[in-house]
């Protein structure tokens, strides 16, 4: 049976803080774009940490939902990085991140249509074969629903996962943010997902703009998201969970304290899952 693991995102301010091995950090996630084109400290850090931690890659520029062809230079670089860290899987978002040769460095929505399902599935199939590494698709946060939707978000994700036969990286904060911004019930959304495909979970904080929630990764995980996380674990069972923090990055000890809370919630929820199983 899969063992529950709890990890953190490797960020530049903490490059020197993970050796010797931290007993309470089971794995690290890297954003490949922060390492792919770099030598020096970044590369040195990866070489050092791969001896101590399982490393997974979570990209932001694969552009699965974009209309431009997939970037072969990006995939070449991603492959080189994967050959260094040998990740058990890699992941990216069900989004568009560039178009017409322009990189947005942000995640834009894709329409919930069958045309988009086919488009994304073809790209995942190609990427997964090219990388020879399992791929996980993350449910992104999005702020508008593009017109012409032919299905719900959960149905859209389910169609893509099933046809591409890949795993799901379930971002619980994104579920919470989207449920508030688009007015649906978060737990019902989770129930509608193919949860047997969940291989990893993201937790993070968000900000309230006043009109809508923004997925900033700039605050600790709020209790509302942790409650939803407990609900997910009771349904999913043991999996890999990590905290994403990309803005207002605190000292590592603060993140470790947050991870300790997540671990307690995760392990307690696993008891419910085992009883139910």
């Amino acid at each position: 049976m899969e063992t529950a693991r709890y990890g953190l995102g490797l960020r530049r301010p903490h490059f020197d803080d993970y050796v010797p091995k931290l007993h309470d950090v089971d794995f690290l996630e890297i954003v490949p774009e922060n390492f792919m084109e770099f030598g020096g400290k970044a590369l040195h850090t990866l070489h050092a940490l791969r001896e101590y931690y399982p490393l997974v890659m979570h990209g932001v520029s694969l552009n699965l939902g974009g209309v431009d062809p997939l970037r072969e230079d990006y995939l070449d670089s991603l492959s080189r990085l994967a050959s260094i860290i040998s990740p058990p899987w890699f992941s990216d978002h069900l989004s568009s991140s560039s178009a017409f040769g322009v990189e947005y460095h942000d995640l834009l929505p894709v329409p919930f249509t069958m045309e988009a399902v086919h488009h994304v599935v073809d790209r995942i199939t190609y990427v997964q074969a090219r990388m020879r590494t399992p791929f996980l698709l993350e449910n992104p946060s999005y702020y508008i629903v593009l017109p012409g939707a032919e299905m719900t978000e959960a149905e859209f994700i389910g169609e893509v996962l099933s046809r591409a036969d890949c795993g799901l990286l379930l971002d619980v904060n994104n579920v919470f943010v989207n449920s508030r911004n688009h007015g649906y019930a978060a737990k019902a959304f989770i129930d509608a997902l193919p949860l047997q495909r969940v291989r990893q979970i993201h937790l993070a904080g968000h900000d309230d703009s006043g009109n809508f929630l923004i997925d900033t990764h700039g605050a600790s995980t709020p209790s509302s998201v942790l409650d939803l996380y407990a609900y997910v674990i009771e349904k999913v069972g043991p999996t890999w969970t990590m905290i994403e923090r990309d803005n207002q990055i605190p000292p590592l000890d603060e993140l470790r304290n947050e991870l300790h809370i997540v671990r307690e919630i995760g392990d307690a929820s696993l008891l419910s899952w085992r009883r139910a199983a």
Partner: protein
Amino acid sequence: MKDQATLLHHMLRGDLDADALALAWNVPKERLYFYIEAVKGHIREAVEKNYDVSSVLFPSDTFTSLVNEFYRRYPAEHYELNRCASAYRAFIDAMYTQNRFGISNFICELTQLEWAEWEVYATREEIRQPKPDQGFVFNPTLQTLMFSYPVGTFVRAWRHNDGVNTLGEPQPSDETVFVFRHPISLHACTMVASPRMLFVLKMVHDVMTPGDAARCANISTKTVLDLLQEAVDDGWLLCSDTF
């Protein structure tokens, strides 16, 4: 799907009115504005981060206009965000030539140094230990930059002062600056080249022996060896004992 991507793209590039698109798509216009500001904001952050000194030398409003112009003229082409700031140097040179935004030649040289620091930080060049018979060799990441303003001195003072600019724009004065990755700490180092450093630079470049260099400069061989060791300690020169 492509039609929607096209409309979003034109909106993000500033060629399509977000209010009109919000109306057509029946979506809250503030959420479209959020995307516009987020995408533009990433470029601004990349410029502020990689040109940390020059960016604060502009009045805030001027810098905002400057970055907006940069965003419009140089669409981001690279998936690594920092690399999208590489074109900013050429953009600043172009704005200087066109006499816009009050950009001086000093600012042009300053952005050159700032980008060189980033290049050295990021380079995939490996620093290998020289073999004993190789003698002294340059650190392969070393960039030697020659300026007509004391750019390195300005940057050092600015950083020593925690980013508070107490200096006015300096008068022209030739200066050579070394930028390199330290072979041990791997940090990017910026040093204003002293006459002693330039002496060592020329000596190693011309493959002179310490004895020959000492005779040419009319100093002792021990002094030359001390200068070489100093350069090795700084990290821009390597020898087989470096590592």
